[in-house]
């Protein structure tokens, strides 16, 4: 019965009922070899908390807990939610040549990052396609801190290790370390207020995309980065494994904090206009097609010294065949893979992400359309179950973001 949007295996939590007793429609969502799924250090904790576990990128992750998807989503926007995002890859890059190393793989101006400043960047390939999106932070502790997607873990690690070996072979000084820390995301308007009660650093001095190491609720050596994937103010906290459950429990003592899972994570990021690698961006999309031109460093564009620059840079001034756009509609929700149609009914693209927006009570979506049809305000249509439904090309984010910037 579950179709578009549900590509995961559903395993009912501690109540112990096995799903998949149903027939064909259910089976697609209820297939999982639980023994072969990776688990974060908080796995047992999630189950104890009533988390409904699903397979995401080969990890057993909570999709939701006691709160419904809607409740969890809205709670994040009104108070704050705590997510386990330890499935993502955390890499530390050491060595004198770490910036040169990083710049050989990504499109951004990494050398210009101030101490403890981070940025969203992209690994690209020689064809100009996006291999992954990631956050690179220039820590003041002699390393770069890189967080990249769970679904690209093996690929990214092979890419980085391969390049590091190449550099070392020519006398470069760079080496990598994977961090086994738990990674938590605390997101929402009250996230930082909650966190402040447990840290002595003044978080008002930690603006969006900056990072610092500090004790959090008595747990020393936590890296706190002011970033996230919800559009809200908030932080990601990288915490040593041994004390992660303790920290989570301390955070949960605050009644404003609720656990949230992957369901809310996805609807929140979509409202915020943030891409999901594998859906909205992949190896066939260039940063220009994906409307991520801002990630291309100014210096890097001129030097054309990143993978795929020969393809990507000309696209900035020139035309692209397709562009990622935001769509908004009413009526039946827009879902991935639905065709996007011109006003005349001609297929001109495809939806890559979509869901009913809990905040807007309208349908929001992202997709690629022919370049000429991509201007904000264009009225297009989406084919939903064989019917054509009007959709408006709209600016993103759909819901205003509330990043904490110092002005």
């Amino acid at each position, binding site marked *: *019965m*579950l*179709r*578009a*949007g*549900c590509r995961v295996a*559903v395993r009912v939590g501690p109540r112990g009922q096995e*799903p998949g*007793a*149903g*027939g*064909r*429609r*259910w089976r697609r*969502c209820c297939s999982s070899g639980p023994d072969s799924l990776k688990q974060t250090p908080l796995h047992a904790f999630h189950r104890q908390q009533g988390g409904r576990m699903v397979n995401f990128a080969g990890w057993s992750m909570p999709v*939701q807990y006691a709160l*419904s*998807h*809607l*409740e969890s*989503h809205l709670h994040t926007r009104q108070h704050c939610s705590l997510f386990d995002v330890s499935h993502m890859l955390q890499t530390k890059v050491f060595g004198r040549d770490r910036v040169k190393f990083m710049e050989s793989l990504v499109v951004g101006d990494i050398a210009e990052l101030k101490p403890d400043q981070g940025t969203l960047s992209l690994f690209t390939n020689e064809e100009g396609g996006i291999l992954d999106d990631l956050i690179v932070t220039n820590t003041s502790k002699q390393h770069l801190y890189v967080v990249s997607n769970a679904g690209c873990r093996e690929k990214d690690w092979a890419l980085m290790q391969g390049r590091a070996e190449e550099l070392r072979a020519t006398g470069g000084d760079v080496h990598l370390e994977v961090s086994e820390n738990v990674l938590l995301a605390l997101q929402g308007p009250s996230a930082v207020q909650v966190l402040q009660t447990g840290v002595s650093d003044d978080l008002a001095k930690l603006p969006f995309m900056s990072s610092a190491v500090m004790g959090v609720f008595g747990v020393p050596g936590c890296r706190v980065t002011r970033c996230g994937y919800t559009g809200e103010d908030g932080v990601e906290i990288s915490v040593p494994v041994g004390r992660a459950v303790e920290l989570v429990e301390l955070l949960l003592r605050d009644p404003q904090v609720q656990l949230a899972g992957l*369901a809310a994570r*996805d*609807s929140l990021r979509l409202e915020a206009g943030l891409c999901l690698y594998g859906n909205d961006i992949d190896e066939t999309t260039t940063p220009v097609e994906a409307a991520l031109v801002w990630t291309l460093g100014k210096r890097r564009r001129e030097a054309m010294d990143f993978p795929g620059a020969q393809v990507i840079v000309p696209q900035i001034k020139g035309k692209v065949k397709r562009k990622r756009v935001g769509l908004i509609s009413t009526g*039946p*929700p827009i*879902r991935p893979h639905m065709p996007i149609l011109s006003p005349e009914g001609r297929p001109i693209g495809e939806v890559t992400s979509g*869901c*009913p927006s*809990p905040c807007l009570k309208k349908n929001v979506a992202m997709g690629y359309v022919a370049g000429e049809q991509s201007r904000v305000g264009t009225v297009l249509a989406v084919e939903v*179950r064989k019917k054509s439904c009007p959709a408006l090309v709209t600016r993103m984010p759909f819901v205003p973001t509330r990043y904490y910037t110092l002005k």
Partner: protein
Amino acid sequence: MAALRALRSLGVSLAPRCPGPLISLRTGWPQAASARSLGTSALLSSARKFTDKHEWISVENGIGTVGISNFAQEALGDIVYCSLPEIGTKLNKQDEFGALESVKAASELYSPLTGEVTEINATLADNPGLVNKSCYEDGKELLFHFQGVNSNSMIKIQMVFLSQADLLLSISPV
């Protein structure tokens, strides 16, 4: 009301593994469709049976009731969109007649019988979340009348969503 009680009792005997109390059907259901005298078809009266699509159907005195299982409703999550057919729509068995959607997932609804839609519940268009709530305790339900035709009788089908009943059985031919 007798019909309602009868359905309830049928449910008990047929779904012994169903946890919890049975479905109690709401009073005040439009009983507008008078049960005509139908043939001797076994379809006149059969206890709840489940399809392989997690819908169930139960027929009582010519009135058929269709719902989705508790497992389905839970797995789908908060329903935010509900589309039902227009009155007069003629449906064949297995035809897609509508959809329920949560934030995360969409599910088409398939007609378990052949027939014609005679009434739909308009409140669900504005209030699709009612589908998730216990239909009977607070009297909210998805309701549409669907006049089904089989080889020898007219059957009305009402669409109802259960808060219990998640047992999958194979459906007898209807």
